[in-house]
């Protein structure tokens, strides 16, 4: 299977739905170890993404991701804006050229996206940030041969849950030091929703 423009649009629409549904939960998580705005930030950003994409006639997956990237960067307001924005921008750059994206190209794009987050956030694995979802998910998807809804769902879920035990060393939560332990990282939970949305829109289509 190849990842089409329609799926790319569908992915972002479904991501938005999950984020809107869980807006309060995401903010609550951020209240515990951040400034409590992550749900608001993400809900505003993804709402704008969907508005931006709506009605446009995209020829390439890369163009969908580019518009998503630019919108997230300029509308989110918090750290997650430049981070998710950079991820989608790098994905767009990696996917440039073809209409649809093969599995290999998709994984390469995700890998670049994850690397973009690390670079932009000057973060690495184990710092209790969204990197702790993106990196393990990319790693596991790389080992598969084709889109696998179940693998995306499971790998992102377990990576998200594992952020609970980490002591934050990046982002606002780092101010709390040991006290950040025992709480899920909000950006990892929203990353999880994004991967769940990806899984949903692949499901049954392979």
């Amino acid at each position, binding site marked *: 299977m190849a990842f089409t423009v329609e799926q790319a649009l569908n992915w972002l629409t479904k991501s938005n739905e999950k984020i809107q549904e869980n807006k309060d939960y995401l903010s609550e998580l951020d209240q515990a170890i951040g*400034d409590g*705005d992550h749900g608001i*930030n993400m809900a505003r950003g993804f709402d704008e993404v969907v508005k931006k994409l709506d009605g446009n006639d995209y020829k390439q997956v890369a163009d969908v991701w580019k518009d998503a990237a630019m919108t997230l*960067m*300029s*509308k989110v*307001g*918090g*750290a997650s*804006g*430049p*981070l998710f*924005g*950079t991820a989608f921008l790098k994905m767009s750059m990696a996917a440039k050229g073809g209409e649809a994206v093969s599995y290999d190209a998709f994984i390469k794009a995700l890998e670049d996206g994850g690397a973009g987050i690390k670079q*932009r*956030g000057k973060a690495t694995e184990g710092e209790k940030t969204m990197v702790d979802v993106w990196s393990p998910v990319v790693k596991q998807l790389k080992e598969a041969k084709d889109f696998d809804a179940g693998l995306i769902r499971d790998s992102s879920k377990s990576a998200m849950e594992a952020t609970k035990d980490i002591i934050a060393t990046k*982002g*606002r939560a780092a101010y709390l030091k040991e006290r950040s332990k025992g709480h899920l990282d909000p950006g990892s939970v929203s990353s999880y929703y994004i991967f769940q949305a990806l899984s949903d829109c692949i499901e049954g289509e392979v």
Partner: protein
Amino acid sequence: MANVGIVIISHSEKVANGVKDILEQAVGQVTVEAAGGQGDGEIGTSLEKIQGAIEKVHSAQGTIVFYDLGSAKMNAEIAIEMLELENVQLAEAPVLEGAYLAAVESSMGRPLEKIVNALEKEFK
């Protein structure tokens, strides 16, 4: 000849505007723009505001950009990369205290590189 421009990024619109007020009151010839808050005035930063502020103060002498908290830094970096201007530097110094020092130095006609050195000396 223009002086080095100064941009103040803060999560708060009030803070960015207030730092601008302080610099303008204290230092006569200073080119400073504020980029505070999100578009809607909420706490946060806005890529558009940052880009707009940099473009407004930028000249051949260059621009120095101050930010308040970590996440503002990422937006500042993106803004700088996207504008593709020569001589735009992100300062690693406290936003108010650093900008004050830079404003005095800039008003004396100091070049960008010297101002960056002065900031490093003072705040490292």
